[in-house]
Structures are given as C-alpha cells and as structure tokens.
C-alpha cells in the first residue's frame, strides 16, 4: 500500500543527478535550518553526556568536573529501578517480536492487496496520532478492584475476593505496553519483508528448501534490517515510557520515568542529567549491539535503510 509502494517505486523514477546546491537563498536556508537543528535540538540531547559531569547548584550548574551527580543517583534502589526497567522492556520487546513477526510476514506475503489489508494497515497507523494517556486509562476500568475482570470473576464465583495484582502491578505494565508499541514493531518488519522479491522465496522452494528453511535462510536474513529497526523503534522509546508506568504502575512499580520525575521535582537537574546520560548510553549501546549483530551476519548499511522513504 501507500508507504511501501512509494518506497519500492523509487527505482522506477530515474534518480536525478546529485548536485551541490549553488549559493542561493534556498541553499542558505537549508544550511541555516540544519545548523539550528544541530545546535538547538541535537546538542541539548548530546550535551547531557557532559552536563552529567558538572556539579549542580540548584537548577543551574557550576563548571567544575565532578562525579557527584552519579554518586547521588547510583544508589541501591535506583539501580534496582534501572534493572527492572531494562528487564520489563526486554521482555515486552520480545513478546512484541513474537507477536509481530508472523503477523508482518502474513501481511506482506500472505495477504492479497485489498480491503482487509488496507484496513489493517490503517489501524496500524491511527494509534500514532491518538493521545497515549487516553489509550491507557481504560485499563483501569478493566483491571481495577471494581473493574470488569474482577466483577466477572466475582459474579461467576471463580474468586471470592477481587484480584489485586491485575492493576498497579508489573502485570498491568506488561499488558499495557504491548498494545501501544505493537505498530512500532510491525511497520519496520512489514516494510522490510514486503521489499523481499517473491522470486527469491520461490527459488528457495524450487531448490528443495522447506518452508522453515526458506524462512530461516532467506526471509530472516533479508529482513534483518527491518528486524533491527523494529527492535530499536520498540525498545528505545519504551525505555522512557512514562504514561503506562504512571497510570498502570500507580506508583507501586517504579520505572525509569518515575526516577526522572522525582529528580526533576526535587530540582536535582544534575542528577536528572546523569540519569539521562545513562539512558543515552544505553540507547547508544543497544544501537551499536544491533548494528554489530547485523554486520556479523554480513549485512552492511544503516538500519534505517528499510525505513527510508
């Protein structure tokens, strides 16, 4: 459909010759805007790595190098929070992949283009543009002590007292995270699988490969950039999710986002910068690990290639 065919059709139009933009108003504007983007947007994010080593004074900073911020935040309970966040994100990302890969494969290679396919793809786009909080709050009505699940269980006599672990628990956070992050996993997988030439799959079968061998030896390697992009696009934003953990963790299951909240509320900007720098490092490590894995399997190029329009 739209997004995919636009990508794959690119080869059909003769690629225009690359040219350097001569000095012109347009060229100057592009340089200016890109420069402003680098200074105003990328620099603040990367500067966290430096700010983390400054000494905090109120919400400002003193320009003396210090490890104070790190020693302030890296205390027992917070290390526990970081590890808990990493564990939950890893598990939910794995669940997303298991649910999304067969579905994306079927969407891309098993389902004929038509109404069903269009509707499914539209349903996978729409959630990006809906309010994250509004999409999560209803779980409270479903999982709460007086919620739907408990009243069904109680009235059917399956349980005598309402189940407490349904809401404000790790269970609720896992459940609440799966839905919102599903499209982030499906799209890269779907796009990369769609771009695989059907002839390659057919050739594998003609040469005697079983369906599983074809999947493992042809489809998975060719879809590797999409798999990598899917994991990154799902896991990284999930690391910082503050909506699900606040609404469904209810303060009982603290994740990274709550730590940021606490530090900012306490006006400990240096501590927040140190924690954020850890997040940046985790993200860079995750990105590097995925890239290295791709390289080792003989796939070069950036993971974004599958996503590029």
């Amino acid at each position: 459909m739209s997004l995919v065919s636009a990508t794959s059709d690119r080869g059909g139009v003769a690629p225009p010759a690359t040219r350097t933009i001569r000095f012109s108003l347009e060229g100057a504007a592009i340089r200016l805007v890109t420069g402003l983007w680098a200074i105003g947007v990328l620099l603040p994010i990367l500067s966290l790595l430096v700010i983390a080593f400054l000494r905090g004074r109120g919400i400002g900073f003193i320009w003396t190098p210090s490890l104070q911020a790190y020693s302030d935040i890296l205390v027992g309970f917070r290390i526990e929070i970081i590890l808990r966040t990493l564990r939950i994100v890893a598990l939910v990302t794995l669940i997303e992949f298991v649910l999304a890969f067969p579905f994306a494969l079927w969407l891309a290679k098993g389902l004929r283009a038509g109404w069903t396919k269009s509707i499914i793809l539209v349903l996978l786009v729409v959630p990006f543009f809906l309010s994250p909080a509004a999409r999560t709050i209803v779980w409270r009505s479903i999982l709460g002590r007086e919620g739907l699940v408990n009243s069904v269980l109680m009235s059917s006599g399956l349980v005598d007292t309402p189940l407490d672990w349904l809401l404000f628990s790790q269970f609720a956070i896992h459940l609440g995270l799966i839905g919102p992050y599903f499209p982030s996993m499906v799209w890269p997988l779907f796009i990369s699988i769609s771009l695989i030439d059907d002839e390659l799959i057919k050739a594998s079968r003609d040469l005697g490969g079983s369906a599983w061998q074809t999947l493992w030896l042809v489809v998975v390697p060719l879809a590797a950039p999409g798999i990598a992009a899917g994991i990154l696009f799902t896991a990284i934003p999930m690391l910082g999710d503050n909506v699900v953990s606040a609404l469904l963790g209810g303060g009982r299951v603290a994740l990274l986002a709550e730590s940021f909240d606490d530090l900012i509320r306490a006006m400990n900007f240096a501590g927040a910068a140190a924690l954020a720098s850890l997040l940046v490092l985790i993200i860079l490590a995750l990105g590097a690990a995925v890239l290295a894995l791709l390289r080792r399997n003989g796939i070069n190029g950036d993971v974004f290639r599958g996503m590029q329009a």
Partner: protein
Amino acid sequence: MRHNPAGLFTRKTVAVSIVFGAIAMALLYIPIVGLALLSFSTQPLSGIPWPLTLEWYASLFEGNNAKWIGPLGTSVAIGLIVSTAATSVALLIGRALPVIERRGGILAAYLSVLVMPGILVGIAVLIFYRGLLGIRTGFWSVVLVHFIWALPFALLCILLVAVRFDRRLLEAAKDLGASRYRQFVDVELPLMLPGISASAFFSFLLSFNELPRTLYARGGVTTLPYYIWTASSAHSSQVSLIYALSAVIMLASFLVTLLAMRLLMRAE
C-alpha cells in the same frame, strides 16, 4: 504481485499469524473502543458500558467542569504553530533532500529523534535551556519539543511525494520562461500538495496529543493532554468527565488521521 509465494504459508501457520496479530490488535484497540463505550456508562470505572447515559457529555460545559476549554485553546494554538513550522521546514529540507550531497547524513540527523524516548527529549530541553542557559521554559519550549516530535513525521510525508517528483518538469517550466517562483508555485507545489497537507494534519495531531515531552518542557503552560493527565491521575471525581472528553478528542483525531492518510494515498 503474487501471494503466498511457493507455499511459504500453510493453513496452520496462517492461522497462527492471524491469531498473534489479533491478540496484539485487541490489546491495542480494547482501550480505544473501551474508552468510547465507557464514556456513555453511568459508572465508567466499573468497566461495564451499561446503563447508558449522556450525563458526562452534557456536564462537560457546566461551570467548573468546563475548565478544559482554556487548555484546548492553548493546544490548538501550539498545534497550529507546530504544524506550520514543521511542514515549512519539512518542505524546505524534503524537496531538496533527494538531490543534494550527504543526504544520508542529513536525513539521519533529522530522523534520529524519532527513536529517542519522549521523556529524554523533554528532559534534555529542560536541562539545557532552563538549567544550563537559564532561560525560563514555557510556551516556546512546548512548541520546541512538539516541533522536534512532529518534524520527522512531516519530513517523511514530504519525502513520500518529493522522491516521486520529476524534476524535469521544472526544467520544462524554466524553458517555457517561468521564474523560479512560478516554477515552485505552479508546478512543484500542486504536485506535492497531498504530502504537504498530510504533513500539516499529522504534525497538528502529534502536537495536539503530545504528553511525555510536554510534562518536562511545559513551564507553567497547561495543554489539553496535560490537563487530562492531571485530572485522570488524581483519582478525582473528574474521571467520568475525562472519559467523555478523551472520547471526543480521540474520535476527532481518528477522523483527521483518516483524512490525512486518504490524501497521501491519493497521491500514489
């Protein structure tokens, strides 16, 4: 295009794929449909959309309950600014990107923020501008973080039409004596219009519904999502109203998304 190429699927594996997809789609859409249903329930927190009532919708405009109107205005204003800014910048960069050098690096620089957790962007803006430079956060910083969120999407919309734009048309227009301005307005703009309008709608929606970044960059500004957030996490009696209000916003966002997608698809 051939489907089920050379029997990659059996009936069983198709069933498994569909069931897995259906589970995830249910987890995605149960809260969305549930919100709409429960907004008509007399007791939204019971999770049972029965008995039905229009009470919450009716009381949205009564006295103290109507406090969402101010934040609505703020969010619409920010959304319009962000939509205009993101679409203009995306148009500037996107129409040049297919033909300039180092496009890979430039594209990566703009799209890299797409993977960043929202909270990280919000905190970076707060710490850098408020902490390091000492500039008070407020309306401008909310616009900035929303712009950062919307720009990659806007850029992708424009690129979808820009990579298909045949630049020889501009040469033809030039040969026929059109000035650069007329080349842009009469030739390029109409052909890229679907992408431009989709970008404008999507950018507005992304800004209008944005929460994680706003939480940190908002200064004293109250956007509509932030208002709903505080009201819903406060365990207050407002929750029933929040369901009705959120359902209306969600329906509107849904319709605008469909409209924008239709525009983009028609461009194909």
